[in-house]
C-alpha cells in the first residue's frame, strides 16, 4: 500500500510541503502566492485570485522572502489547475500556453526585479461555462526537470487554483433561459399567508433544466410601486448561469412586515408548487436545491427580506419547505428601514446591501432615518458586504420605466438603466456564486477596490461610474478584530484591549449616526454624514482629521495576538467625512499609509492607494451626501517585500500615518472594523492550533547554588478548543533530572481560542557541574502537532571569574582637588576598593579573579602586571602601586602631563586579549579631562570591541571638565557602563567614586544593588543611630556589603554591622554555618557573605543594619586634630560645631531576584524623550507585583521623581507583565542625567524585595575628536610639561 505523506509547515505566508509517497523520496515544495499584478509603488506587486481575461498575468517572487530563488534560472509553468491530491499523484508539468514553459532567471533583491509576465491579455482560456473563471496553477520549476519536485515553488498547491482567468460577469451565461408567468393558487397562497391579490410569480430557469441536477434558488421581492416583472435582467442573467429565479408580487403597500410575510409565503409556496409539478409544467421537479436559497429584495422589499430572516432567526415563523440555514444570502437593494434594530435585522445571515447615492426615494438623507440604507448592513453580524453606486437612482435597479429614474444628483449614469444594470449583474453573479457555490475567484469581486478590479463589461473611462465595496469576513474563526470601537468607548484603548495613541486632530469615537438633520459640516456633529446607525443601533466608529501636517493614529497589539502570520490580510473600512473642508479640498481619492511595527522596532508602511484607488469622496449631491464606507485590505506578507525585515510573528503595533508625507495632505475620515482576516469561507471548520513559544529551553550557564526558571509556553492560535498535556519524557532515574528543582507537568487542559497562553515554569537549579539535558513531551489535539518534544538544557558552572584592567588617569589635573579630596587619592582609594572586592584565587586553582593596572597621561604603560589576585597580593598593591608614596612618585602615579586616553585603552585591552569562554573580561577607564593626545577614543573603541566582543567596557568621568559624550560612547554596557562623578566629593557625595567602582564590580559579576546611599549622621548625641538597612530575601544567594567612612573620624563613634537576627558581624561570625568574610582598608569595610540554602532562610532573610553609636568624644579640639591627621580635608563639610559626618552604605546581592533597568533615548541629544524601563524577575520569571520609581537629577535644576507604570500606558507595551516604563521629557538641558531607580517588588515567595539601581545618560553631541596626529605619536613631552608648569604657576598666582 502506498501511503500519501503530506506535512505542512507554515512559514510567514508560505508553506513548505512534503509531497510524494513514503515509498519514494519525499520532495519539499514551497507553496506560496505567485500570480497577480504589478504595482507602481511599494509593495510593487499584488497577489490575487482572479484576473480578468482581458488583462495580462504576471508572477513575482521576492528574493528577500525566498532567498533560495536568488541566482536560479527556472522554468515557469502555467498549468491547468490540479487539486492537492492530483498533484500528489501526478507531479508532471504541462504548460497550457502555446509557447510552453518560460525560462527566467531570478536575481537581485527586489520583487519588481523578479516580476515576469506569463500571459498576455486575452491569451488564456477563460470560458468557464457557468463558472466565473478557469483555474490555473503556476509552478516555478527550479531544477527544470518538468516535474513539481524538491525546491520548486507553486501557486495553487491546495484544492483552489493558483489564479483564475475570469470572463465578463456582466455577460449572459451559456444557458438558454425560459421565463414563465403564473399565479399561485389562492388556496395554496392562503396556506402560506400570501394575500389573494399578491399571488403572481415570474419564473426564470435554464431551458435545459431536465438535463441538470439540483439548482440553487433565487427569490426576488419587489419594492413598493414596482412590478415583479421588472427584475427580468437579474432573472435571465442568473438563470443563464444555472439558477432558478423567481420574482414574486409583493405586499409592500401596507408596509414592510406584510412584505416580509409575502417573501416567506412565496418562498414556501414556490418550492411547494414547483416540487409538486404545478409550476412550469413540472419542469422543476427534482431540480430545486432548497438548501441554497438567495433572497433579493428591493426597497421595502429589501427591508422585507431582512425582516423575514429575523422571523426565522427569532423562531416566530417556521417555514414548511426550508429552514433559516437554507438562506445562503440576502441582498437588499436600496432598502428602507421602517422597523429598526430589533425587527429589520439580518443577524447572522450572509448579507449584502446595494445603495444608490442618487436615490430620490430611499434617499439616505440625514433627516430621514428610515431612508438610510446602511443601518441594515451594520446590523449584520456574519459575512457582510455593501456596494454603493454613485450617480444612479432608485428606479434604475429594476427593469421597469427608466423615467422617472427617482434620481437626484450630479454626474448621472442614467437613464437608461443600462450602466446600473451592468454594475448590478457584474457583481450579483460573483456574489451569489460565492455564497451558493463557494466560488473562489468571486471573492476578488467582493473584496478588491472597484477601481482596480471590476467586471469587464462595465465601461472604463466614465468618471461618473463610482462604485465602492465593503466586505467583512464573518467567520467565527480566522479573524481577529483589533478595534471595532464597540465595546471600549475610551479613545485610548482598543476593543481588543491595546493602547491607542494618536496625534491626529479632532479624534472622536461614537455611534456612526449623523446627529442632526443635514449633511452640512459642523464641528458640533463630528459624525456628520454617518448613516450606518440609527439611535437604537450600536454601530460605532472612529473619526479624525489632519491638515497639512503629518499625523498618526496607532493601535498597540495585545501580547497574545502579535503573531500576524496566522492571518492573510489587514482589513478596515473607512469613509471620507462628507462636506468637511478637508474632504472638499480635493476631489481625488484620499490616501494614507498603514504601518506595521514589530517587537524589534522594525517598521514597514504601505500606502492604501498602492493597490489602485483610495477612499472615495462622498457623492457630490447637495454639496456632499452620506459617508461611503469602503473596505481596504492589505495582504500581510506584502509588508515583508524587498527585505523590509518586518517580523510578522511579533507585530506590536498597527499605525495609520496620515498627512503630506504619507498621502493626502489633508483629510477627514471615519474608520471602523480594524481587523486581521483570513478569508475563511462560510463553512470553515474550527480547528485548534498549537504554538509552542520555544521547543528548546536553554538555561545557559547557571552557577551552582543559583536557580533559573524558564517556561514551556503553549498558545492556541486556532479557533477551536485546544486540548493539551505536558509530561516528562526523560525516564525516572536519569541523573540529570535532579538538576531541575521544579518540573511542572500537566494532564489534559483546554486552552480556548483567544485564551491567554498556558505557562508552565521549569526551574533549573544545578547541583553538579557540567551540561544537563532532559526532555518533556507536549501532546495535543492539533492534528498537525499531536506530539512535540521540548528539550531543556543547561550547564552548571562555578562562579565565573573576572579579568579586570583598571585604566588610571595620572594626568596633571589629577592633582587637583575634587571637593574634599585630591582626585588621584580618590582614584587610588576606589581602585584599592575594587582590588579588595576581587575574589581570591584559592590554592592556585585558576578560579579566582585577575587584575592589572594601566596608567596614562600623555604616555601610557602597564602599571600593575596582569595576574591572579590573592590576599597577599592585595596587601602588596596597597603598599606599593596604590600606596601614598606612589602618589608622589613621578615614576608611578604622580599626576603630570596631558591626557591620552585612547592609547591607554589600547594597551589595557591588549593585556586582556581576545575573548575567553570561561572568564569575564572587564576594562574600566577613568579620566578627569579631555583627551588631547592621539590615538583618540573614536579611533580605538571600534577595534577594541571588534577584537574582543565579550569585553565589558566601563567608563568613569571624574569632575566637570570631561567629555561625557565620548565616555558614554566608549561603553558597550548601555547606561550601566557609564558613571559620572562630580567635582564635589564632599558630604553625601564624598564616597561617590568608591561607590561607582563598587557598582561596576557588582554589575560585572551580575549582582544587584540593594541600597547605595551615603548618609550624613549627626554625632551630637549618644543613642545608637540606624544609618541604613539592606533588605535580603531568600532569593539572594550571596551579598557584598560596603561601609564607607573617614578613618580619622572613627574615633568619634562605634559602627556596627548587624544581621537581621541582631547578630553583630565581627571576625569569626558565621551565618548558617558559613563564615562572613571581612576586609577593612582606608575608607571602607567590606563584608562578603554567602548565604546558606533557603532552608536556613531565617538566618539571613530580613533587614541587615548599619548601626552607629556616637561615643561622646566629639569636641572642637578633637575634631580639629583629627582633620589635621586625615587625608580628607573636609574643608567645606565637617564643622566641629555641628557634629555631622558622612557614612556610606551599599549592598549588592547575587540573587535569583533581579531588577533590570535601562535608560534609552533617540540620538541621545537634548530635548529628546528618555525612556525609562525596569523589569523585575525571579529565576527569570516576571514578577509583576510591585512599584518602581525613578529620581532623575538633570545637569541643571532640581531632581524630579516619577513613577513607572506596568499598565500598558506611559510607553509600557503590555500591562502587568513585570515590566515598567515611563517617559521623561524635561531634557532640554545638555549634559548628564542621573537616574536613580527604586523598586519595591515581591519575589516568587511573596517576600518584599526592594532594589535600587543608578544609571547615567548623557544627552549631548559627542565631542569632536582632536585632529589626529598623522604619526600617531604623543606630542613632545617637554612641551606638555612646560605647559603644565605654566598652568600651575598661573594657579598659584591666582591663589595669591
Amino acid at each position: 500500500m502506498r501511503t500519501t505523506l503530506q506535512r505542512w509547515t507554515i512559514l510567514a505566508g508560505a508553506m513548505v510541503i512534503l509531497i510524494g509517497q513514503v515509498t519514494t523520496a519525499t520532495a519539499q515544495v514551497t507553496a506560496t502566492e505567485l500570480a497577480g499584478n504589478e504595482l507602481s509603488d511599494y509593495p510593487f506587486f499584488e497577489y490575487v485570485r482572479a484576473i480578468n481575461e482581458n488583462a495580462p498575468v504576471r508572477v513575482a517572487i521576492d528574493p528577500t522572502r525566498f532567498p533560495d530563488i536568488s541566482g536560479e534560472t527556472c522554468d515557469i509553468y502555467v498549468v491547468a489547475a490540479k487539486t492537492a491530491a492530483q498533484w500528489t499523484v501526478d507531479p508532471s508539468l504541462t504548460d497550457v500556453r502555446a509557447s510552453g514553459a518560460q525560462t527566467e532567471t531570478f536575481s537581485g533583491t527586489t520583487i519588481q526585479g523578479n516580476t515576469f509576465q506569463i500571459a498576455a491579455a486575452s491569451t488564456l482560456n477563460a470560458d468557464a461555462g457557468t463558472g466565473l473563471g478557469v483555474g490555473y496553477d503556476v509552478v516555478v520549476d527550479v531544477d527544470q526537470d518538468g516535474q513539481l519536485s524538491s525546491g520548486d515553488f507553486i501557486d495553487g498547491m491546495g484544492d483552489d487554483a493558483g489564479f483564475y482567468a475570469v470572463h465578463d460577469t456582466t455577460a449572459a451565461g451559456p444557458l438558454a433561459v425560459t421565463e414563465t408567468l403564473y399565479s399561485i393558487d389562492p388556496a395554496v397562497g392562503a396556506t402560506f399567508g400570501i394575500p389573494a391579490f399578491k399571488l403572481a410569480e415570474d419564473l426564470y430557469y435554464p431551458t435545459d433544466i431536465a438535463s441538470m441536477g439540483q439548482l440553487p434558488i433565487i427569490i426576488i421581492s419587489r419594492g413598493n410601486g414596482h412590478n415583479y416583472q421588472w427584475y427580468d435582467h437579474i432573472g435571465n442573467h442568473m438563470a443563464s448561469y444555472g439558477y432558478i429565479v423567481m420574482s414574486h408580487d409583493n405586499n409592500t403597500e401596507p408596509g414592510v412586515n406584510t412584505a416580509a410575510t409575502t417573501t416567506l409565503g412565496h418562498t414556501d409556496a414556490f418550492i411547494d408548487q414547483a416540487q409538486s409539478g404545478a409550476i412550469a409544467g413540472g419542469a422543476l421537479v427534482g431540480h430545486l436545491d432548497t438548501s441554497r436559497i438567495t433572497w433579493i429584495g428591493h426597497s421595502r422589499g429589501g427591508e422585507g427580506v431582512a425582516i423575514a430572516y429575523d422571523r426565522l432567526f427569532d423562531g416566530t415563523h417556521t417555514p414548511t419547505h426550508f429552514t433559516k440555514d437554507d438562506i445562503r444570502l440576502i441582498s437588499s437593494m436600496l432598502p428602507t428601514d421602517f422597523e429598526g434594530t430589533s425587527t429589520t435585522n439580518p443577524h447572522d445571515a450572509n448579507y449584502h446591501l446595494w445603495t444608490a447615492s442618487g436615490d430620490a426615494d430611499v434617499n439616505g438623507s440625514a433627516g430621514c432615518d428610515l431612508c438610510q440604507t446602511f443601518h441594515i448592513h451594520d446590523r449584520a453580524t456574519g459575512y457582510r458586504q455593501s456596494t454603493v453606486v454613485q450617480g444612479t437612482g432608485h428606479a434604475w435597479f429594476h427593469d421597469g420605466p427608466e423615467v422617472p429614474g427617482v434620481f437626484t444628483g450630479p454626474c448621472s449614469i442614467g437613464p437608461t438603466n443600462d450602466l446600473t444594470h451592468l454594475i448590478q449583474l457584474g457583481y450579483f453573479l460573483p456574489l451569489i456564486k460565492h455564497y451558493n457555490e463557494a466560488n473562489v475567484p468571486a471573492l476578488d469581486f467582493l473584496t478588491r477596490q472597484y477601481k482596480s478590479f471590476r467586471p469587464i463589461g462595465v465601461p472604463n473611462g466614465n468618471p461618473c461610474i463610482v462604485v465602492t465595496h465593503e466586505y467583512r469576513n464573518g467567520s467565527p474563526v480566522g479573524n481577529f478584530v483589533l478595534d471595532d470601537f464597540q465595546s471600549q468607548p475610551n479613545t485610548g484603548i482598543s476593543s481588543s484591549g491595546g493602547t491607542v495613541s494618536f496625534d491626529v486632530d479632532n479624534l472622536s469615537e461614537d455611534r456612526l449616526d449623523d446627529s442632526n438633520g443635514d449633511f452640512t459640516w459642523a464641528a458640533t456633529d463630528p459624525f456628520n454624514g454617518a448613516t450606518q446607525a440609527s439611535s437604537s443601533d450600536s454601530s460605532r466608529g472612529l473619526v479624525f482629521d489632519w491638515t497639512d501636517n503629518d499625523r498618526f493614529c496607532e493601535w498597540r497589539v495585545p501580547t497574545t495576538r502579535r503573531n500576524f502570520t496566522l492571518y492573510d490580510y489587514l482589513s478596515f473600512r473607512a469613509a471620507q467625512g462628507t462636506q468637511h473642508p478637508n474632504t472638499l479640498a480635493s476631489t481625488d481619492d484620499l490616501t494614507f499609509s498603514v504601518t506595521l511595527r514589530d517587537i524589534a522596532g522594525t517598521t514597514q508602511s504601505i500606502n492604501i492607494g498602492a493597490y489602485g484607488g483610495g477612499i472615495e469622496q462622498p457623492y457630490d449631491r447637495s454639496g456632499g451626501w452620506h459617508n461611503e464606507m469602503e473596505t481596504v485590505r492589505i495582504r500581510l506578507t506584502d509588508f515583508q517585500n524587498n527585505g523590509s525585515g518586518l517580523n510578522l510573528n511579533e507585530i506590536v503595533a498597527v499605525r495609520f500615518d496620515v498627512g503630506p508625507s504619507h498621502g493626502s495632505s489633508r483629510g477627514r475620515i471615519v474608520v471602523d472594523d480594524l481587523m486581521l482576516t483570513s478569508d475563511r469561507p462560510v463553512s470553515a471548520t474550527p480547528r485548534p492550533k498549537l504554538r509552542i513559544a520555544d521547543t528548546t529551553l536553554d538555561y545557559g550557564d547557571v552557577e551552582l547554588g543559583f536557580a533559573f526558571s524558564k517556561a514551556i509556553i503553549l498558545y492556541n492560535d486556532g479557533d477551536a478548543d485546544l486540548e493539551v498535556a505536558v509530561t516528562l519524557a526523560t525516564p525516572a532515574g536519569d541523573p540529570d533530572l535532579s538538576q531541575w528543582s521544579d518540573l511542572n507537568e500537566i494532564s489534559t487542559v483546554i486552552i480556548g481560542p483567544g485564551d491567554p497562553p498556558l505557562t508552565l515554569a521549569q526551574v533549573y537549579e544545578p547541583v553538579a557541574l557540567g551540561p544537563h539535558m532532559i526532555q518533556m513531551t507536549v501532546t495535543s489535539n492539533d492534528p498537525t502537532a499531536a506530539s512535540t518534544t521540548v528539550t531543556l538544557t543547561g550547564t552548571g558552572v562555578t562562579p565565573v571569574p573576572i579579568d579586570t584592567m583598571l585604566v588610571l588617569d595620572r594626568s596633571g589635573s589629577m592633582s587637583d582637588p575634587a571637593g574634599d579630596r585630591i582626585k588621584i587619592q580618590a582614584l587610588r582609594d576606589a581602585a584599592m576598593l575594587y582590588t579588595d572586592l576581587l575574589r581570591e584565587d584559592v590554592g592556585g586553582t585558576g578560579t579566582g579573579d585577575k587584575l592589572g593596572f594601566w596608567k596614562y597621561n600623555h604616555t601610557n604603560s602597564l602599571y600593575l602586571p596582569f595576574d591572579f589576585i590573592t590576599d597577599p597580593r592585595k596587601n602588596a598593591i596597597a603598599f606599593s602601586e596604590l600606596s601614598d608614596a606612589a602618589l608622589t612618585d613621578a615614576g608611578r602615579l604622580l599626576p603630570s602631563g596631558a591626557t591620552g586616553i585612547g592609547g591607554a585603552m589600547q594597551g589595557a585591552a591588549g593585556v586582556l586579549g581576545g575573548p575567553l569562554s570561561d572568564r569575564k573580561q572587564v576594562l574600566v577607564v577613568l579620566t578627569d579631562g579631555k583627551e588631547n593626545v592621539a590615538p583618540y577614543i573614536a579611533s580605538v573603541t571600534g577595534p577594541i570591541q571588534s577584537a574582543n566582543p565579550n569585553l565589558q567596557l566601563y567608563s568613569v568621568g571624574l569632575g566637570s571638565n570631561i567629555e561625557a559624550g565620548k565616555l558614554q560612547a566608549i561603553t558597550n554596557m548601555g547606561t550601566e557602563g557609564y558613571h559620572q562623578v562630580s567635582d564635589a566629593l564632599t558630604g553625601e557625595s564624598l564616597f561617590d567614586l568608591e561607590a561607582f567602582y563598587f557598582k561596576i564590580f557588582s554589575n560585572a559579576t551580575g549582582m544587584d544593588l540593594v541600597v547605595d546611599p551615603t548618609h550624613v549622621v549627626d554625632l551630637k548625641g549618644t543613642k545608637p543611630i540606624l544609618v541604613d538597612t539592606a533588605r535580603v530575601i531568600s532569593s539572594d544567594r550571596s551579598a557584598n556589603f560596603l561601609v564607607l567612612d573617614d578613618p580619622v573620624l572613627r574615633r568619634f563613634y562605634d559602627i556596627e554591622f548587624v544581621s537581621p537576627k541582631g547578630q553583630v558581624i565581627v571576625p569569626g561570625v558565621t551565618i548558617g554555618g558559613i563564615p562572613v568574610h571581612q576586609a577593612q582598608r582606608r575608607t571602607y569595610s567590606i563584608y562578603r557573605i554567602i548565604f546558606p540554602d533557603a532552608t536556613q532562610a531565617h538566618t539571613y532573610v530580613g533587614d541587615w543594619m548599619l548601626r552607629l553609636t556616637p561615643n561622646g568624644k566629639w569636641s572642637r579640639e578633637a575634631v580639629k586634630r583629627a582633620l589635621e591627621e586625615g587625608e580628607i580635608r573636609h574643608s567645606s563639610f565637617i564643622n566641629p560645631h555641628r557634629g555631622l559626618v558622612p557614612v556610606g552604605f551599599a549592598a549588592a546581592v547575587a540573587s535569583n531576584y533581579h531588577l533590570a533597568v535601562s535608560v534609552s533615548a533617540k540620538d541621545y541629544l537634548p530635548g529628546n524623550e528618555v525612556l525609562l524601563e525596569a523589569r523585575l524577575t525571579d529565576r527569570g520569571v516576571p514578577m509583576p507585583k510591585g512599584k518602581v520609581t525613578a529620581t532623575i537629577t538633570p545637569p541643571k535644576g532640581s531632581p524630579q521623581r516619577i513613577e513607572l507604570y506596568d499598565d500598558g500606558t506611559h510607553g509600557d507595551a503590555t500591562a502587568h507583565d513585570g515590566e515598567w516604563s515611563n517617559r521623561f521629557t524635561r531634557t532640554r538641558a545638555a549634559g548628564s542625567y542621573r537616574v536613580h531607580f527604586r523598586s519595591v517588588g515581591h519575589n516568587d515567595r511573596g517576600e518584599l524585595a526592594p532594589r535600587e539601581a543608578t544609571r547615567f545618560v548623557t544627552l549631548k553631541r559627542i565631542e569632536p575628536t582632536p585632529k589626529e596626529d598623522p604619526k600617531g605619536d604623543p606630542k613632545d613631552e617637554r612641551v606638555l610639561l612646560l605647559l603644565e608648569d605654566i598652568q600651575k604657576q598661573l594657579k598659584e598666582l591666582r591663589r595669591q
Partner: protein
Amino acid sequence: MRTLYLSLAVLVPAVAAAQDEVPKIPRTPAAVTEVVHVQPFRLAQGYRNDWSQKKEVISSGSLVVLKVDPALVYPRNAAEPVLYAGDRTVQRLNHGHQSGHVIGIVPGEMDLAGTLIWFGQPGLPERVTERTIRAERAMAEEAKLQPVSAEAVKRVQQEPVEAAHLSDLLRDHVAELVLKYSPEEKSLVETWRLPVAGRQPKQR
C-alpha cells in the same frame, strides 16, 4: 371608450418623462377630490386585512373609486399618506398616480354617506391603530375637511357584487374598474388574471 383609454395610456408616460421628478408629498390631511364609484361587495370566504394593525378578516365592504391628487398617491418606498374612510383605513388596490383614480376597498359595512374620506400623514397602513385613526380624524376635522355627501354617494352607488373570494373579486370586478379608471395600470389586471399554477387556463 376603448380607444380613449389607449390614447391616455400613450400620453401619460410622455408627461412623466417630461417631468422626471418625484412629486413632493402634498400637505396632509387632504381630502379626496371626488367619490367616483361605490359598490358594496360580499365574499363567500373572507380574507385578512393587512391595512391596519388589527388585521381583521373581511368578507364584505365597499369597492370605491376615488378621484385624488396624483401627488398624494405617487408610489414611494418611504412613507406615503395613508387613506382613511371614517374609522378605518382604505385598502388601496392600485396606485393611481398616473390616472388620478384610486381604487380601493372600504372594509366592512359602512354607509359612506356623511363619511369623511381623507389622506392622513405619511406612514405605513399596517401600523395604523384605532388611536391613530382618531388622531388623524381629529386633524382632518380641524382642517375642516368635509365628509362625502349623501347625494354624492347616491349618485355613484352601484349594485352589490358577490364573489367566492378576494382573488375572484379582483379578477372579475376590480380588474374592470382598473381598466376603466386607471388603464395605465393594466398590468395589475394582467397579474390578477394570470393562469393559476397547476390549473388549466380559465376560458374567458
